[in-house]
């Protein structure tokens, strides 16, 4: 019984947090974070002399994303090599 009460209270708390988070989220369809875009456009060329701002964002400002992409590719290669390696026993 105590366990059930704890679970119910936890569920209500979690629901409240989720509703609050959804309510506080950025409105859908509204292009957000315009100050960041303006910062890239205004400062990328002068600060790091990036003629191509897309590449500057991909490899510098948001390089962490690019690490993720490289990791995805590496994981795909590892999976393929694991599944299809030679010397596999016949079923």
């Amino acid at each position, binding site marked *: 019984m105590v366990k059930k009460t704890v679970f119910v209270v936890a569920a209500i708390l979690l629901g409240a947090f989720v509703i609050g988070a959804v309510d506080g989220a950025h409105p859908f369809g509204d292009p957000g974070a315009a100050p960041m875009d303006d910062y890239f456009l205004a400062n990328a*060329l*002068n*600060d*790091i*002399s*990036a*003629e*191509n701002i*897309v*590449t*500057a964002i*991909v*490899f*510098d400002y948001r*390089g*962490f994303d*690019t*690490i993720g*992409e*490289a990791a995805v*590719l*590496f994981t*795909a*290669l590892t999976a*393929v*090599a694991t*599944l*299809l*390696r*030679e010397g*596999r026993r016949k079923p």
Partner: protein
Amino acid sequence: MNPLSVVVRTVCDLFAWFMIVFGVNVLLHGYVTPGGGFQGGAIIATFIAFLLVAYGGRRVASRVNDRLFDLFEEVGLLVFFILAFLGLPVTFFFNFLAKPLAESAGGFIPGVGTVALMSVAVGLEVTGALSLIILTMHRGIRMFRGEDLEPETGHDR
């Protein structure tokens, strides 16, 4: 995978190398023009797919060395991570080689600094990874067909 006709093979002999040239061009100029590491690497990896289609699997598998692409993959990823970590005194991925526009003229490394170098590193990594995926999947097809693999014959040989 059977080799295709002599027309396809001749065209492959003549023009396949320009794929590599174009891919390297896209990769090296990624910091100026559209493109970059991922796109250039994908273009270079098309070379292996083209060789497989034109010449058939057995001939390509006997010539191509997997360790080269292994090396590409490892060196690309390592250079990428090391360049990212070298900026660590400030932040992860700090562009420590970049110069402001006013003083960026000249020099071996372009003014964008690590952006250009990382583009090349990621290009190497993508080249190795995609080529290895193509080669390994082709080898897997051969493996699952078993020993009763028919001899590879094209239209004319």
